[in-house]
């Protein structure tokens, strides 16, 4: 009996399926918010980023045009979808963050037999896994996608860990009065590095969630 009443309580608080009208309106509403945010960002002389989850793309945009794009191989959302708004990246975290080289002043050396001691921070120095924290607390975890059966098999423990730990993180945040939303995105390894390179702290972005995102797990 107690179990039954607990389940009834859970059902009472869990959302029911939306009506067709609600779905259409909420889709139009989210497009409206995205467009409003884009017009605001496009009026400024900077590059901004759009995580377009329904289209499965990350877009690098400026002045309302796409200057580069990368396909999302897979994505997963945990937590309540926040309102579509312009967000800033307040932290970019990686275990293997690249370090800039400090140049020591010295007379220019002549190239030796065509060889050149190149001190530079380049694309291949960028990490293949990292996390972005947005100003509304949303976390975007970016990781490399590896196709193939064995890669997926090796990925299984990581996925299991992810699914086991997210509820506990949600609990922790709930008890501290904060919502917790995490977006996990898998990209081709070179795209992960490109995104790390291009998305600096302070960069502005929009996440275009699909209206049904919360139900997609």
């Amino acid at each position, binding site marked *: 009996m107690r179990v039954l009443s607990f389940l009834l309580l859970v059902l009472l608080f869990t959302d029911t399926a939306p009506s067709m*009208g609600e779905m259409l309106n*909420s889709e139009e509403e989210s497009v409206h918010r995205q*467009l409003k945010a884009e017009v605001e960002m496009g009026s400024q002389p*900077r*590059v901004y980023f759009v995580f377009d989850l329904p289209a499965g793309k990350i877009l690098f945009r400026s002045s309302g045009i796409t200057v580069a794009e990368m396909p999302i191989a897979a994505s997963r959302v945990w937590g309540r979808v926040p309102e579509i708004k312009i967000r800033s990246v307040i932290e970019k975290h990686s275990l293997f963050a690249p370090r800039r080289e400090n140049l020591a*002043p010295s007379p220019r050396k002549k190239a030796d037999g065509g060889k050149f001691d190149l001190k530079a921070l380049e694309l291949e120095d960028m990490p293949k896994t990292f996390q972005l924290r947005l100003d509304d607390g949303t976390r975007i975890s970016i990781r490399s996608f590896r196709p193939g059966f064995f890669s997926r098999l090796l990925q299984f423990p990581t996925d299991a860990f992810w699914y086991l730990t997210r509820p506990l993180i949600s609990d922790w945040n709930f008890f501290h009065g904060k919502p917790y939303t995490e977006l996990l995105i898998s990209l081709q390894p070179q795209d992960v590095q490109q995104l790390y390179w291009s998305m600096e702290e302070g960069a502005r972005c929009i996440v275009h969630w699909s209206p049904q995102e919360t139900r997609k797990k």
Partner: protein
Amino acid sequence: VKPKMKRALLLGILVAAGLFALLELFGWLLGGGIRFGAAARAEAERPGRSQSLRAANEALRNKLADLAPHGVFVVVDTAGNRVYLRQRSVVLREMTASCGSGNILEEPGGGRKWVFDTPRGQFRVQSKTSNPLWVKPDWAYIEEGEPIPKDSRERALPGMLGDFALGLGKGYFIHGTMYTRLLGRNVSHGCIRLGDEDLKALVQATSIGTKVIIF
């Protein structure tokens, strides 16, 4: 004593497992998006709202389209060391470049510090110069361990920037290079270096005011 301990241990494990399961369940419900927003639903279902939204979205789309550059523009990918001459979504020419190395130089004895990054954002071509002179900046002398000249005329060096230079402001240029074998690598001090042919084509295709988008 032993059966009692066993029972207590079992009970402890069961309680811990139960607690863990409850926390997991509660977390799953939170993560699954429990919604209490009846007000939001009522707003979404308001009759006529969908039509007005569609009209507003169309107006916003038009506004966004107006922001796009008219005519040719330049896109610089600093990670891939590529420069694209574009008109709308059509790439007219793809070029290999050298962008900023990301290195840091500090003046010995403290004081000034330079980060050799190519700046990102939106710029415009502010100047077009043929046979530009490189006015060697302080950091170039410091990097090479040379004394900084007092007479500014000593700083002007011909031939270092190739045949042309497109000024983007704040001392940054798209210019030529003597180190063509390093095109495609991040070796510059922040400027964008191009090969002679590509630079010539870019200079011919752009004019003062052409947008340059760097990411």
